[in-house]
Structure formats: structure tokens, C-alpha cells
């Protein structure tokens, strides 16, 4: 039977498409590996599609999708028994970025610090700090109390600040010695000219 491409009658499931980029970014922050992230998103799409009748129309589709995504991630991880995250993969790709030793923190430093957080801290930070979730939405997504989200975020920020402060000091030291070298070199030059 020929299936004349029926003009899309509004299927609420089509809205999933809108959230694909955000889902990928969230999956990426959980898995830290782009192929694992894509697998995770793929599994999430299938689950969301098959269980769409459980989604209450008019409620938060983004939070619902993110919940499925993180449940899938954590149950997969329990199965895989603490599989080592591929830090050499996606995150490390940015390590090749030129170091910004000008007092500003290099992205690589940040990412090195970021992977040292616990999964729970990382996801809370990504949800609220980057994807623009409210504390309430993040709490709903992670199925914890709003206060728990807040304290995870606070602790995550503190931890990041600690780690990054250390690397910032190193960066500053480097800048100082580099500056000293340049300055003394130009002093030498000036002396010769004089």
C-alpha cells in the first residue's frame, strides 16, 4: 500500500526534536564522550517515544526528557559497573586549545576541574548553570528536593573554585616569569641602543 506522505498532523511527539540539542549537551556533560552521549540520546528518544502516553501534556517536556535521559545514564552505568569515563575523548579535545595564560582561565583548566566533580554535582551545575533550568525544574528532573539541588550547586562551585584557584596561581606565575623575560630582554635591547 502506498503511503502518501500525510501532511504532518501536529504530533506532540514532534516537539522532542526541539530539545535534541539540549539533550545532547546534557548527555555530553554526563558521559563526557560524544559517541556515548549520542547513544544515550538515541536510547532516550526511543524510550520517550514509546512511553509518550505517560507524559502529561502541558507539563514540562524538557524536564521529562532530561529525566529519562539521566535515568538511562545511571541505570546503564550501574550495569557497566563504573566504566571509566572517556576523559581522553571529547573533553580532552579542547586541551589542544591554546593556553590562555593571561590570568583568565583556560577552558582546558576548567574542564579538568569540571571532571573532578561528582556526577550529581556536575549535573546540577549543568542543569541550572548552563541549560537554564530553575532550581525547581532541576529538582524535578533529578527527583530530589530543591534544597538538595541548591547545596549540590554550592558545593560544586566551591570545589571548582578551589581547583581552579590553584591552576590560576600557576597560570599567573607563568605569566610573571614570561613577562619578566620579555621586559628584561627589551631592557637589554634598549641598553644596546643607548
Amino acid at each position, binding site marked *: 500500500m502506498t503511503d502518501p506522505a500525510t501532511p504532518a498532523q501536529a*504530533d506532540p511527539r514532534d516537539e522532542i526534536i526541539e530539545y535534541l540539542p539540549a539533550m545532547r*549537551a546534557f548527555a555530553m556533560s554526563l558521559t563526557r564522550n560524544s559517541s556515548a552521549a549520542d547513544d544515550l540520546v*538515541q536510547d532516550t528518544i*526511543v524510550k520517550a517515544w514509546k512511553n509518550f502516553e505517560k507524559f502529561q501534556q502541558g507539563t514540562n517536556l524538557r524536564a521529562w526528557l532530561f529525566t529519562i535521559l539521566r535515568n538511562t545514564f545511571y541505570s546503564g552505568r550501574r550495569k557497566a559497573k563504573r566504566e571509566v569515563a572517556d576523559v581522553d575523548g571529547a573533553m580532552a579535545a579542547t586541551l589542544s586549545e591554546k593556553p590562555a595564560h593571561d590570568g583568565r582561565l583556560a577552558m582546558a583548566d*576548567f*574542564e579538568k576541574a569540571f571532571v573532578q566533580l561528582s556526577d550529581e554535582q556536575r549535573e546540577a551545575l549543568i542543569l541550572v*548553570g548552563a541549560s537554564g533550568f530553575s532550581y525547581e525544574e532541576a529538582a524535578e528532573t533529578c527527583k530530589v528536593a530543591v534544597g538538595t539541588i541548591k547545596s549540590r550547586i554550592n558545593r560544586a562551585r566551591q570545589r571548582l*573554585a578551589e581547583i*581552579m584557584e590553584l591552576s590560576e596561581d600557576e597560570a599567573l606565575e607563568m605569566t610573571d616569569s614570561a613577562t619578566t623575560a620579555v621586559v628584561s630582554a627589551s631592557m637589554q635591547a634598549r641598553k644596546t641602543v643607548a
Partner: protein
Amino acid sequence: MQQKEPQSSLERQIDENLRKVYQRTVEEDVPDKFMDLLKQLKDQDSGND
């Protein structure tokens, strides 16, 4: 609940970097395989009807 202002420059950098990490992926084009998958799921459904 209002978003609090970042207090320190370090905190501002944390937020900035956080968004950068995230945006990088958000701005990537969604791979075709996802659209293909959605289409497949849809076709399956209409096939079952």
C-alpha cells in the same frame, strides 16, 4: 527565585566556562541519525495502525 549575581570574578569565570562547554554542543547540528530515528519510530507507529 532570582538568579543571584556572581560574586567573584572566579565565579563569573565558572559560569562563563560552564555555558561555553554546554553551548558548544547545543550549537552543533543535530546529527541526521536522530532525525532518521524519529522518522523510523513514526513510520513504525503508522504501520501498526
